[in-house]
């Protein structure tokens, strides 16, 4: 009697494995083991159709529901315990040797959630886990983990502390992600074990509880599928979005400003803070180029789906002959790395700082609210300009932040080449590809050329309703390769 009492409590209220959360920075780790902290993050979540970290049940600070005390599972005869040391790489099974993959392979029919069929729940959860692993690029993760472990075991590792720090941090984050998924798998298998046990013992109450736990997991798993779309190293970062008008004069400058406006509205609707850093207006209308800063959790993870060339077809309001025009605007998205230690180190002596668009005598002669600054990184020729702040000092600081991110991106691209296998997915997103067409005439449609996702209401898209496009692209990007999960 006491035995079952203990078992029931533990099963419904306590997760038997301790959480690991080394730094809270790793996005997926955060998704799997902790809820996002802060009311701001929560607001963000609730407004997202594909929300991040929105677990069904409210959680405590460590991501646990409830506050039941931990129980000693080792004393339970039929429940297998995995130590956290070996959990990461060993394949968990039920007491009768069933693995998650085996469950997925059984092809048990997946019924509606309302059907109380444990096989259906288990199959749905197993499918989700497969998809999550695919999206996380599981096999690449394992290979990378082995590489990192090998690197960490080298005796001369700490001769280069910066490198060593980076390696061990990446190892920790990767390990965290893998363990989080493995914990989820173990949880599934344990609930199956408990359910079978309850049936053997004829304990209806326990059976119901286990069934409910499986259903909860099934719902959880659906959310984790979405969360896994944003598991990239930099996905949780804030970002810069740059829009540049293509050739074609006023019509394409007008298009560029429409695109920029679309992102401002998209960002605002998601609760991101938007700051205009630079804006070069066109002579008659629109913009030649503009840069905005979009601040908030996962801004980069979403916005990265927008990189590329956007094409507009319409009757130009700037053409007195009312002809149909095609214009282009290019979009770039750059993450703002929050971790200073991973940033490209800029030498002060490599910089040339210029007053931008300044003329005349300056000083006391001139009263101007223009204090634009351009910073040029001499070795690479990369530059950044900011003109929209109200002091030169702030313009310089903002331009410096843009420059830092551009150099970070360059460095990332360089490292991606060195380590092509690991970062392949990032290089697939490249500047210069036409990604989407917006047709306002002779018919009305917006179509993504990468996913074939389309909508027939361009106005809503231009008003910032981009989530369908983003979500479709992210899932297509991550689901198309890695047909074989481990």
């Amino acid at each position: 009697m006491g035995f079952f009492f203990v078992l029931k409590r533990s099963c419904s209220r306590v997760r038997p494995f301790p959480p690991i959360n080394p730094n809270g920075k790793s996005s997926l780790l955060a998704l799997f083991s902790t809820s996002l902290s802060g009311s701001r993050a929560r607001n963000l979540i609730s407004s997202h159709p594909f929300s991040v970290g929105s677990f069904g049940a409210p959680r405590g600070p460590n991501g646990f529901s409830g506050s039941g005390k931990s129980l000693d599972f080792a004393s339970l005869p039929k429940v297998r315990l995995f130590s956290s040391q070996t959990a990461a790489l060993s394949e968990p099974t039920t007491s009768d040797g069933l693995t998650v993959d085996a469950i997925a392979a059984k092809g048990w029919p997946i019924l509606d959630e309302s059907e109380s069929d444990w096989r259906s729940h288990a199959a749905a959860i197993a499918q989700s886990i497969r998809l999550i692993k695919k999206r996380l690029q599981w096999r690449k993760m394992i290979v990378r983990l082995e590489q990192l472990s090998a690197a960490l075991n080298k005796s001369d590792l700490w001769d280069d502390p910066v490198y060593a720090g980076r390696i061990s941090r990446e190892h920790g984050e990767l390990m965290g992600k893998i363990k989080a998924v493995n914990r989820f798998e173990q949880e599934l298998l344990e609930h199956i074990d408990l359910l079978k046990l309850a049936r053997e013992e004829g304990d209806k109450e326990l059976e119901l509880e286990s069934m409910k736990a499986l259903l909860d997991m099934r719902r959880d798993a659906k959310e984790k599928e979405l969360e896994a779309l944003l598991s990239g190293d930099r996905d949780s970062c804030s970002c810069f979005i740059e829009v540049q008008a293509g050739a074609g004069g006023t019509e394409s400058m007008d298009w560029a400003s429409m695109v920029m406006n679309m992102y401002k509205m998209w960002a605002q609707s998601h609760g991101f803070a938007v700051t205009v850093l630079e804006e070069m207006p066109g002579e008659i209308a629109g913009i030649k180029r503009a840069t905005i800063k979009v601040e908030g959790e996962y801004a980069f993870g979403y916005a990265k789906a927008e990189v590329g060339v956007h094409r507009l077809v319409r009757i130009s309001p700037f053409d007195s002959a009312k002809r149909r025009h095609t214009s282009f605007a290019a979009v770039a998205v750059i993450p703002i790395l929050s971790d200073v230690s991973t940033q490209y180190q800029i030498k002060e002596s490599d910089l040339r700082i210029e007053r931008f668009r300044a003329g005349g005598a300056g000083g006391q002669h001139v009263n101007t609210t223009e204090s634009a600054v351009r910073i040029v990184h001499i070795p690479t020729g990369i530059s950044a300009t900011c003109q929209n702040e109200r002091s030169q000092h702030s313009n310089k600081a903002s331009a410096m932040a843009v420059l830092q991110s551009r150099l970070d991106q360059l460095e990332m691209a360089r490292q991606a080449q060195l380590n092509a296998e690991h970062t392949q997915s990032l290089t697939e997103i490249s500047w210069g590809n036409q990604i989407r067409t917006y047709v306002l005439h002779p018919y009305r449609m917006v179509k993504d050329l990468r996913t074939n996702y389309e909508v027939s209401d361009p106005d809503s898209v231009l008003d910032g309703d981009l989530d369908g496009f983003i979500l479709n692209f992210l899932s297509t990007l991550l689901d198309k390769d890695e047909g074989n999960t481990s």
Partner: protein
Amino acid sequence: MILRLPFAIRSALPSPSLPLHRRPIRSPPASALSSLPPRPRQEIPLFLRPLAHSAARSDLDAFRRWAKSLALTAAPGIAAAADGGPDADHLIRELSWLVQDATSEPEVGDEVRLRVGLEELYRLWRERIEKRRPFQYLVGCEHWRDLVLVVREGVLIPRPETELLVDMVAEVEGFQEGLWADMGTGSGAIAVGIGRLLGVRGKVFATDLSPDAVEVARFNVERYGLKDKVEIREGPWFEPLQDVKGKLAGLVSNPPYIPSSHISGLQAEVGWHEPRLALDGGKDGTDYLLHLCEGSASALKPGGFFAFETNGDKQSEFIADFISTMWGNFFENVETVLDFAGIKRFVTGVRR
């Protein structure tokens, strides 16, 4: 903490003895003035006023449209005057900042809370365009470095170039614990900039001849909580600094340096509205600079640093040459320093 505001509240009776502007050097066109009623003396800066007014969002949008079209209409005329005045882009950006200062954070809904009545915004913008009143006087502040400094008529609006003086001070070894002086402090910009960087034993003396400047500088110093770090003293140049003679770790100044003959041709925002006292440097523009250099020899302690802003290039070279030739015994490492526009804007050196 309650700050004493040195400004008359708007509702207070305007003192008729105080003129709107210091003596204008060149009168704005009569047509621009005729439609405008006389304005009371400077009020509390816009961004510090309470959100005591409100307007329908559509009315604020209508103001924006009107103000934008006024700017676009006026821009060609300003460009034709060729005095270096603002172009349409600048004016439109100023308009967005004016609205920014007059409202609170982005608000949703049809009603917008304002720090001034809508009719006051119309009046202010008309002054900006028609009287070429500097934007900074309109809103009563200037963003400078990471500070928001209160300014008003009678006080020079701090220039972006001058920000670098603070950076130069911050590069001097051990500057945090030294005694500094900012002579002709105006709004107190440089003194506040330095004061914020100082350590427990460091201090800035900020002097100015103008009672207006002293009042504004005092307000800015108090607003940044620097009363213990920055001491304002009224008086010309070195006169208020007799008690610290020979003890100063450094001297900085942005003195009047424009040659008298250039004053009449200045940009309208400067020539019509800013105090001549803060601009006119005498025949060659070097009257006060030379006075500062000479006085530095006795004011600075050995190893003390000075940095002065000048009219640029030739004037900087002249001053640097003059110091090296005439007072070579007193100073070393005398050099000119570029601003971000590539102009030799500053002269710096070290007391032997």
